[in-house]
């Protein structure tokens, strides 16, 4: 079943609501035992990187999550800070990331140092799908999602980028390697486009 990792951060109920309206079963897990039987994992996240990593460590679910993702190859979707946690590290904090996908998190301000655009990057932006993947099924032509972030995920391998968003410069707003997926935007708050993406993730 689709299991939303509840480590005290992120809008858990928003994901549950999307799946309830889509008639797709989903549940939350706050303990290692509750992760049993997960066939899809969603890792939400808001706030600062270190705080999110600390909360996840404190939840006691880290080892079970590692086993599910790295050994049993259960598909996982990191959202917003949850996506940033998938990498090795973040400029925002000192703690190590989960290391499930090769990349590190960098300040958007560095990427666009020569641009006079407002920061953080906040609002609805178009997303350009650059690699065919079932996650973006029927979202290739016209899709827009809600963004709210000051940092972005820089993939080591350009081919891991599934979709790009443009804000002064293009950056990877969706990444994918094996069973690990991450999106910088908030699908749970992106109306029909986000609902479609979360439905696609359920059907991977």
């Amino acid at each position: 079943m689709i299991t939303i990792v509840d480590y005290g951060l992120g809008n858990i109920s928003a994901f549950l609501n999307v799946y309830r309206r889509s008639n797709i079963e989903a549940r939350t897990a706050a303990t290692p035992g509750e992760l049993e039987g997960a066939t899809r994992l969603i890792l939400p996240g808001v706030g600062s990187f270190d705080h999110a990593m600390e909360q996840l460590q404190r939840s006691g679910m880290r080892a079970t999550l590692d086993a599910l993702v790295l050994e049993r190859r259960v598909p996982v979707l990191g959202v917003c800070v949850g996506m940033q946690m998938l990498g090795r590290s973040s400029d925002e904090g000192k703690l190590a990331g989960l290391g499930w996908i090769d990349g590190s998190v960098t300040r958007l301000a560095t990427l666009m140092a020569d641009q006079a655009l407002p920061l953080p990057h906040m609002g609805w932006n178009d997303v350009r799908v650059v690699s065919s993947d079932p996650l973006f099924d029927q979202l290739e032509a016209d899709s827009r999602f809600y963004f709210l972030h000051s940092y972005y995920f820089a993939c080591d391998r350009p081919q891991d980028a599934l979709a790009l968003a443009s804000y002064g410069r293009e950056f990877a707003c969706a990444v994918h390697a094996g069973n690990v997926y991450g999106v910088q935007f908030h699908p749970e708050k992106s109306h029909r486009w986000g609902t479609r993406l979360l439905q696609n993730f359920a059907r991977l």
Partner: protein
Amino acid sequence: MLRPRISPCLLVHKGGLVKTKQFASPTYVGDPINAVKIFNEKEADELIVLDIDATRDRVEPNFRLIAQFAVECRMPLCYGGGIKTVEHAKRITGLGVEKVAISSAAVENPALVPAIAEAIGSQSVVVVLDVKQGGGYDVWTHNGSRRVGQSAEAAAAAMEQRGAGEIVVNSIDRDGLMKGYDLALAARMRAATRLPLTMLGGAGSLADIGAVIRTCGVIGASAGSLFVFKGAYRAVLINYPAQAQKDEIIRSALQPAGDRVVS
């Protein structure tokens, strides 16, 4: 392309949804949760909810109500009213609210914005500046009853320095009048900060929204009355432009002046 945001702003007073005029005479317009459900269906860009009692009554944020909003809201939510501590902000984002709005407390306690930004990240910290025209534009707090003695531009620059992630400028003079945004104020504020900016107060038509986008580019245009009243008699009717209509307002507002069709 990052799009300008068109955001309904809902005021909560005594548990109900109200609309004020120049920060006074709140009119009851309905049940706030019901309004959220309608804006979900209409796919609003985001929603701003402000509890106008909490600071005045010196009470904590109403966490039970906030939890209800967070559960119902299928669009990004910004919540303000009574947030005075880091713990308040953490608890509210923990409930699933994307952004917390701080107004009086941010002005009175300069250490608060940096502390909250540190705890929940700058991107989730919104400072609401209530502004009234004097010689220039002054910041007021406590529902427009206390004058701070700082210009709106200086306050926005200071909040940016302290780690705010967005500035909402609320025009007390224009509130509820539906005669258009104060475009001179909007232009001044756009020049005063590099943060994302949202203008609130005065919108009476979709053309007014187009005008503020034409003035400032990609910003947030927020409105209360426009999205809860219909017609000259201010009949209560929750409304919001359809996607195609919204795209057209934005397209026409952002195209270069020479290409504009005069209608």
